[in-house]
């Protein structure tokens, strides 16, 4: 989060539209966090599969920012001097935008979790993508659903049909997201070999091929093909 002088400074500075995060003092700046948050948000909204919860405490950091900014707003409120009043409006607008990003990000995740709850809870690897709160929510939600099914009809079913995770007949009852769906992704350059693109193994309908995606290039691909690059931060969705 920035206060007003930063914002004004920003206006004069030209941006690299998909520039790397600027960690200048070891701690990510507000701007870098905003960029990371926006990227996480776009990625999360662009894919059908749940992405790993941001590991470096991004969400915790940005919510803290929002909190301090809200406190600041409260502090400034009541001061009716035109100049503070103006900056107050700018800060509030900024806060609303951050709040929207975080909210939308969290809601997108919750929606995916709700859709395939059992799938994400089924293996430890998948479960690791959820934050602690999300695991708690998902577990409880699944519990409620199962309880609801049991009391509505499953309870009077024969014992061997009461499960929700049967795999009889070779078909698992647990459905997962469709990883073959298409996404539009932009290359950010390889992390291991700076300056170079990444090699995407594209699986086509007729034949598979390799495509090099350099920084700034935009491609349409199957999610399963670009997934690893997006998770490594070598590509982002648009």
């Amino acid at each position, binding site marked *: 989060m920035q206060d007003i002088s930063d914002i004004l400074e920003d206006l004069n500075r030209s941006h690299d539209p998909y520039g790397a995060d600027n960690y200048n003092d070891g701690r990510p700046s507000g701007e870098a966090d905003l960029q990371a948050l926006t990227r996480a948000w776009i990625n999360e909204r662009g894919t059908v599969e749940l992405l790993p919860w941001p590991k470096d405490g991004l969400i915790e950091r940005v919510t803290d920012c929002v909190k301090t900014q809200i406190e600041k707003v409260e502090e400034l409120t*009541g001061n009716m001097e035109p100049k503070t009043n103006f900056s107050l409006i700018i800060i509030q*607008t900024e806060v609303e935008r951050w709040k929207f990003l975080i909210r939308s990000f969290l809601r997108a995740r919750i929606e995916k979790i709700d859709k395939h709850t059992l799938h994400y809870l089924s293996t430890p690897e998948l479960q690791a993508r959820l934050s602690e709160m999300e695991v708690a929510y998902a577990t409880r939600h699944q519990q*409620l659903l199962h309880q609801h099914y049991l009391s509505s009809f*499953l309870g009077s*079913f024969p014992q061997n049909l009461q499960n929700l995770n049967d795999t009889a007949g070779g078909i698992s009852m647990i459905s997962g997201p469709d990883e073959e769906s298409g996404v539009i992704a932009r290359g950010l350059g390889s992390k291991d070999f700076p300056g170079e693109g990444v090699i995407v193994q594209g699986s086509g309908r007729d034949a598979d091929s390799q495509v090099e995606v350099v920084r700034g290039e935009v491609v349409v691909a199957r999610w399963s093909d670009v997934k690893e690059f997006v998770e490594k931060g070598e590509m982002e969705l648009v």
Partner: protein
Amino acid sequence: MYGDLGIKLVQHAKRTQKLEHLPAYQTEIVRAVTREVRDLDKDVSNILQSHNGSIDPSADPATACTLLVDHLCMRRNKRCLLAYHRTRTDKLEEMVWSGNDVSDLAEQQQRPGNGQGSAADLGNVEGNSSSLSPEEEEYVRQYSDLLAAFKGQWTDIDLTGSLEPPRDLFIDVRVLKDAGEIQTEYGTINLTKNSQFYVRQGDVERLISQGYLLKLS
């Protein structure tokens, strides 16, 4: 015929997806399908018993086929039931997210012909009984609690807030229903019907989603 009722449930579920409100819970069909499953299961165990618990499919293809069909029908019915209930709970969850609670839902159903309520009641043949099964009401209550707890961890963000990107900090609103007084940081506003205000969006978000205010563009 096996499965006839199951497909009815699926059709109901399909229809529900497109509707704004939740049609009445099909208690009868749900019960009938469950009964069918139990009957089929009894059937299966009878057949198995008469064959001493094991059959050779190649020696007795007819019985093997019966068993398979019974088996598949049971599973299919289960899927239909699950699909039906899941569609409804999804709908209910959506309502919980948008800020309705059970009493609101029940109230809506009990007052046919009242403004917003009339549209919601068109599909409800039984008139003023709730369209939720008791189990569903219980589910909504518990889910509301769960959501409230989850939301409580994100107090500053207001998870159930608008998912539209914010454009303006202040917006024009018209009051559709008397909503009493609200406190904002710019003082108290008295929201009387048909009056118009220029207010901070964050302050009135809730009232807009509840239908008290109309956002003017």
